């Protein structure tokens, strides 16, 4: 149950990072390079958090078996 909840949170963060990447590409297309780069970094941080939550969920799942 706990691992499923964590996996859900991880998916939400992965989805959020995709949104940041989308915004970043829009900003890069409108020649706003600094803002695009900053959005890219936020996307990286969010996806890193999502991957970490995935790891937590997997470890919880493995330990519960």
């Amino acid at each position, binding site marked *: 149950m706990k691992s499923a909840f964590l996996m859900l949170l991880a998916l939400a963060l992965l989805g*959020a990072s995709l949104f940041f990447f989308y915004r970043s590409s829009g900003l890069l297309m409108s*020649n706003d390079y600094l803002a695009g780069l900053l959005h890219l970094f936020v996307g990286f941080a969010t996806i890193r958090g999502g991957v970490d939550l*995935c790891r937590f969920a997997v470890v919880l799942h493995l*330990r519960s078996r």
Partner: protein
Amino acid sequence: MHHALLLGVGLTLTSLLLFIPALYMRALTGLELSMDMVTLMSLPILVLLIGTITKRAWLLLWLFPCSHLLALAVIPELSSHRLYQGVEGLGAFGVLLLVAGIYFSTALRDTEPQHHTFASSKAPEEGIRLVSMSTLTLLLSGAILTSFLLGIFLEPSNDRLSANITALAGLLTTWIVLGRFWYPYFIRPMNDLESRKTMIQEVLFVGRITRQQLTFSAIIVALTLSMLLVFNSIM
């Protein structure tokens, strides 16, 4: 059967990438193809045939996709923006990406015994896990690239330099996410027993995760998502 599938998907990919655009541009702009150009366009078919027979991973996964680049570089009309403009162009590009995804998935499965010999020596569930991990990785990389491509296609700007920079940023981002975060932190521990033990040791404290910590994580994620909503409504 599997050879036929790989050949079929590979030929469809080459047709969608080179031959159909050539026919379309010929009708649209009167593009004349010389013998050299047709030879370059046929090069991927030769590579695909050799790759299917020899089952070499580098031929199927690297040389075949890269062999299209020669024709695309020599005949710029094949990657003209007139091909992929508008909703129909976006749809055509989506189909192209879908076929490319199916090709890589098929080629990965075809070369799996050479790539991951440990899969056959372990339990069947390990092999299934390996396949599902490949699918997850494909989905993630596809989602990241799509998020960048949506920005390129939906933005009204026609600046080719910006489009190229954005496409390169998308590719770089995909490589960084897969190579730096996704593979070492998630995929490798899932498929390698030693790495998995290390991962479990690293995140051992999760076993004692309290309800308070779980609630805190949920609040952080909810805050991030609500910020996104607010941000989206402002922009």
